[in-house]
């Protein structure tokens, strides 16, 4: 996983509540057995005017000029500003894979769906939850200011705006630790807890042997 420490990035606004994971990456692209290459199909049904299919060269497809990520002023954005309940729906990790592959590293919204939230942090994305009024203000600022960039500092848990404002945010200590160090949590679990898992398993098997086949 790519580490995230601090980044100053262009902000793209996606002004729509309840953005679901079907919208982030439609089902036909879930047939891939790889973890990479989903970026060109991020928001496929919003970005293009035709129906996409896996393995297609997207460079010649008709693009939807009205869609925010197709507007030249947001080209190269790495911060996505979104509305409430972002990432609802299916558990597909292809959604954060597509967002990351496209170039996003930070998503700011008033709320996120639970499974998406977990998946995103495991793929080097920093998800920041801010209150609705602050998100509203950021939407206004982004719209009014071409080239609007936010400086996001994970270590200090602060966002610096071009206007000089500092906005603090919360992040779980463990998620922060993994993200700032780019750590694979499987390795951590096995290093720190193998013994505890074995002990638990022995007790669990003795108490409820029917949970273990062939016990």
């Amino acid at each position, binding site marked *: 996983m790519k580490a995230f420490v601090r980044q100053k990035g262009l902000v793209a606004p996606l*002004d729509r509540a309840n953005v*679901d994971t*079907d919208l982030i990456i439609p089902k036909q692209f879930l047939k891939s*057995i790889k973890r990479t290459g989903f970026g060109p199909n991020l928001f496929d049904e919003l970005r293009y005017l035709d129906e996409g299919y896996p393995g297609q060269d997207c460079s010649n497809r008709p693009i939807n000029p009205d869609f925010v990520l197709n507007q030249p002023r947001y080209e190269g954005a790495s911060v996505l500003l979104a509305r409430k309940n972002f990432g*609802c*729906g299916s558990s597909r990790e292809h959604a954060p894979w597509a967002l990351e592959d496209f170039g996003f590293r930070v998503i700011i919204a008033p709320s996120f769906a639970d499974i998406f939230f977990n998946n995103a942090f495991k793929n080097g994305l920093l998800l920041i939850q801010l209150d609705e009024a602050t998100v509203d203000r950021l939407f206004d600022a982004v719209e009014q200011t071409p080239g609007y960039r936010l400086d996001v500092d994970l270590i200090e848990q602060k966002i610096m705006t071009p206007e000089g404002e500092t906005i603090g945010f919360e992040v*779980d*200590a463990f998620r922060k630790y993994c993200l700032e160090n780019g750590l694979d949590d499987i390795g951590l679990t096995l290093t720190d807890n193998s013994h505890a898992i074995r002990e638990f398993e022995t007790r669990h098997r003795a108490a409820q042997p029917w949970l273990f086949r062939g016990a």
Partner: protein
Amino acid sequence: MAGQTLYDKLWASHLVSSRDDGTSLIYIDRHLLHEVTSPQAFEGLRLADRRPWRIDANIATADHNVPTSLKERSAGIAGIEDNVSRIQVQTLDDNTTSFGIETFGINDVRQGIVHIIGPEQGATLPGMTVVCGDSHTATHGAFGALAHGIGTSEVEHVLATQCLIQRKMKNMQVRVEGQLGPHVTAKDIVLAIIGEIGTAGGTGCAIEFAGSAIRDLSMEGRMTICNMAIEAGARVGLVAVDDTTINYVKGRPFAPTPEQWDAAVESWRSLVSDDDAVFDKVVTLDAATIEPQVSWGTSPEMVVGIHDSVPDPSQATDDTTQRGITRALEYMGLHAGQKITDIQLDRVFIGSCTNARIEDLRAAAAVVEGRQVAGSIKQAMVVPGSGLVKRQAEQEGLDQVFRDAGFEWREAGCSMCLAMNADKLGAGEHCASTSNRNFEGRQGYGGRTHLVSPAMAAAAAIAGHFVDVREFVDTPAPARRVAGL
């Protein structure tokens, strides 16, 4: 000290360790795998030279991509015409074979949608933790099991460590009290709940469904309700264990052996919330007021009763909601104030992990029997949730009832719920669907999904538009019994 909720008990009994910030490791008893969210996890294991922690905890089947036509299905994996789908199904088979994981192959009668076959096999038991790389894993909570939908990184984590990294959720209780009206079903209850609390109403919570209307439901009905907990934002749905639960489990292939049975039942009896347990949030619904539900928009919370009309965006309380309704009406090709019963349909889909169990097929068949699918319907299909559900339905003659009425009778799989196989909507087509999500493009590019119960889908197929199943079934069908029934 306040008592514990069912969720508190399940959490405590699986807690392996906790960090200071509340990040915890919980032990996983059952891991269900399917072809879409597992290939990258197996690849990750191989790259790190890791092995699964406990092979016997895992069960796999292909469901999302599998064709449902008998012709394509009969040739096995090699017969899957879509190359990309075939490779994905083959990859699951290769991975589970090489790691020695029990797999129900695509023509095994035990194959089906993971959330249908787990309970059917007794592989989902009360008191278990169950995970699967699919958000509808909440279904298994109907057994008093703690069931989470997880992402692919978590699939890999569970394979490698038999544990999941979690933070404890909040406790939410949704009580549905009183008696449902005739032909009002579990699907209508859960759609009404989502309409009430919204698609983020349960975010961060484990929802326990309680109250007399939930207790009165069969296991099939409870599974339908827990299945859609995720559509209310909750990763976890739960129903307390009672005799209905225990009777359902008894005698299934993976259930406790006769020697273990009494001890297991005694342990399962404690899987209820204590009387003095405290919930962070409680919502109560009156079952008697729930009408058959129909979704009109592109989010499951955009749902109303059959006698209501499509809402007017100008009545919305805030700008974001107003834009959401306007966009949904545009996508759905509907206008404000349009009566739900005036929505004309193109296709009907009866299936999915929400509503493809035997009870669902019986409810639909009871409406269909002796009637004909309307001429304006391009396709009406029934996709049983598993090979065993299909076999049971055929033994009861339900397949013949559907075929005689003009429905297609398919092989088991996820099918048109998410259109990863050939079963999909065309652009602009309206579908009465017993599935769980009405998102844009969910059932096919440009497709327009309306979520309903199996009985309501069946009635809509006959009428060609939405109709109140309660009025519909009171009108006698033309006298005609199917031979052999």
